């Protein structure tokens, strides 16, 4: 199937299989390795991307369903020289342990920050529910959001 979508600000036109998952297209075809998979059934949230600005587990999205949509992954968040404030906050508060859930957690927080910069702690906790972090960095993620709240 032919599909067009915009990923990290770049327009793509691709031929995809009807059963091809979005996470596989992003990783294997576009080389966006920040998109992890941890279960393939929507339990862990590691494959979360922003689909038209909203967090979605890309293992549960068939690629063609992302037609005409805009997708954001962590690759577009910031660069080494110009980190997104959340990326900097993650480093400063020591949020990174094994690192595997970090891209997903960043995207969830970016969504909150973009839509509700003054979000309350409870909202942040609830939003992060969809991402499993086995290292247990949840409180660090909340603290990172504190650093960017309202900014």
């Amino acid at each position, binding site marked *: 199937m032919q599909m067009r979508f915009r990923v990290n600000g770049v327009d793509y036109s691709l031929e995809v299989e009807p059963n091809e998952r979005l996470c596989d297209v992003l990783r294997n075809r576009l*080389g*966006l*390795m*920040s998109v*992890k998979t*941890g*279960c*393939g*059934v929507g*339990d*862990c949230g*590691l494959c979360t991307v922003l689909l038209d600005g909203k967090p979605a587990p890309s293992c549960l999205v068939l690629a063609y369903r992302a037609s005409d949509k805009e997708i954001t*992954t*962590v*690759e577009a*968040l*910031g*660069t*080494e020289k110009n*980190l997104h404030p959340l*990326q900097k906050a*993650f*480093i*400063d508060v*020591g*949020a*990174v*342990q*094994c*690192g*595997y*859930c*970090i*891209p997903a957690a*960043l995207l969830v927080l970016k969504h909150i920050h973009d839509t509700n910069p003054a979000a309350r702690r409870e909202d942040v*906790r*609830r939003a*992060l*529910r969809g*991402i*499993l*972090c*086995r*290292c*247990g*960095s*949840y*409180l*660090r*993620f*909340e603290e990172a959001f504190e650093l960017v709240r309202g900014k």
Partner: protein
Amino acid sequence: MSEEIVERFRQIIEAREFLVVGKKVARVDALDAVLGRPIYTGDFVTGKTLFVKAVRSKLPHAYIRGIDTSKSKAVKILTHRDIPGVNDAGSLIPDRPLLAVNKVRHIGEAVALVVAESMQEAEDAAEDVEIWYDPLPVVKSPREAMSPNAPRIQEDRDNVVTHFKIRKGDVEKGFRESDVVIERTYKTQFITGLPLEIEIAYSYPDRDGGITCISSMQNLYDVYNKVLKILGLPAEKLRVVQAATGGGFGPKSDETPIDVAAYACLATHHTGKPALAAFTRSEAITVQCKRHPFEITNTVGASKDGRVLAWKSTLLEDTGAYISKGHLVIGRATFHCTGPYEVPNVWADGYCVLTNNTMAGSTRGFGAPQAHFAAESIMNELADELGMSPLEIREINMLKPGRYTATSQRIEDDGLLRCYRKAVEASSFERKLVEYGEYNRLSKTVKKGIGIALLYHGNTLGPEGDDFATVLTYVDRDGTVHVQTGLTEYGTGALTSLVIVTAETLGIPTSRVRLERPDTAAIPNSGPTVASRTTVIGGRAALDAALKIRALVASVASKALGVGPEELEFRDGRILHPSRGHVTWEEAVQQCFEQGVELKAIGHYMAPPTKWDPETGQGSPYNQYTYGALVAEVSVDVETGFIRVERLTAAYDVGRAINPLGLETVFQGGSIMGLGYALTEEIIHENGYVVNPDLHSFIIPTSTDSPLEIKSIIVEVPGPVGVFGAKAMGEIPVVLPAAAIAGAVANATGTYIRELPLKPERVLKTLKIK
């Protein structure tokens, strides 16, 4: 380079105020993570590769009668006959074939491998391999396995693998002299450490006819040595590189990293092509090594005034169908069975037992969470019997300087007492105890409670292996310092500690130090990355290497400044003398290069061997102990059985805080992992079958399950072995949550729940019986 100068520099550094140690330092690898850079094994797979899948046993115990591969459309199908070397993948004990030969002993055991062009084709091809079995009776528990007519799990071995003993004093006399004796049995469950990055290995042929394997793991040389034997290759034909690893927690130190690496390498060996082996989540949960379930019966006797006089423990440990690290886990659990208390008379029997359940092995804490849950719970019950508070019973009996452990090891430091005091004070324990009591008189549905648990944790390997580490440090012409070791990073931040130690020694900022990837082609064996030993033991090796570099640089800089090398100070990127001025680090390095002084050093450290008597368990099994105290505050809904952990207050004696930022992260993270163990996590075996190998029925904590506050208090009582006095910390925060939370639940409800996890149905059932 004289050893004298190295030694002199060591003394100088230890005597002066630290430059970097003790400051909050960001993880050196944090930038890669927040940018989502391709650093994990799966990120390196490019171009055409083959995919390898295991055909796994669908029965927990059976003879293999035949394998029909005719319907499978694989590129290649491999059975044990296709293993060119030795068919053995046991990480320490050679009891586990990589591919089953004529019998399967647990569900999900690998029988054959299929190699295909895509992962989907590999999975289909694996489904199409038919295996005929003759089922055998399934041994479901250690109790069954220990009965006289139980079938043997492994033909050449008794089902009881290890009987571990502690014999101290006269336990019967101790009970006779006791005013109160209570006996309780506690049970714990299977869980998995569940690293979120699933087991994965990628291999490809080298130009010189060898194989390179990139993989996710903790123990570089365990994987290398084992795969080398499986392939039957000479040492130089295999190279293993650890990619960034998305979580370790123990499972990545045991059997499954060997398996995936061997699967990929076998495929490359047989096809000459790149190959990827990766588990699915359910495969990983089924076969990765789990935390051992224990059944622990403690009998404790005490005098009226609260002195514990005698302690008897029987520990049954289910290690599954193969031993993995079960024989060592039972040792650590038994050594710690009395908790951090002085008991004059101890009798303990720990049994590591084979069953037809899936394998258990290393999991963060290594037997300590189970032992402490049982010990701390019975201390609370004893306090109740004696009409004492949980604080009083602990104050009377805890290990303090001059007191002796269950193995008669004399305690020299007061780390435990300090942790205890800090945690009690910071949590306002005594005030809360009263407040919650009042609250509970008025509240019918929600009951609040507070509990405390204490720990001591033997550092590092002790009886569990050779406690050595090796670190290679070298310097580029531009002054960049490279640190490389076979010890690995998988989340705890321990390798950042090695960078800090190096920067501290050379007086340069941490940004001038680069960590290189663990790679068997570049560095010798550095021992396993387990037992929370990277900072403690690896730090000593990093210090040794950095001191050698410092001595080399000083020998050159001293000539330029016209002073003795030992008179030079290294700080702020400069090498200084109080009256003769300074050279910068970069200038000094430049001079070394010009004078042909190679700035490269191997640092090595071997911890003193520990001694204990295997017949009595008596002696000093560990060189030093980490101490800790954890206070948990909970609310229990007595109508639904739902427990919420409101707050945790943790105080740990880390010896020396090399990086307080990293410590706080690990304190909190480990506490949350331990909370999952306490409340929800459980891998259920039914007749040998794993019934919940997925993340919607194996429930780990999410953000909303974590307490609103985890107060982290660092206590520093330097230990004799670790670098700058550091003590082991990576595993420790996971040890106490179950014990502290169970104590708080008992305080809230007046009921002791003696089996983990404290899931709602169990809570309700126990409350009803009461």
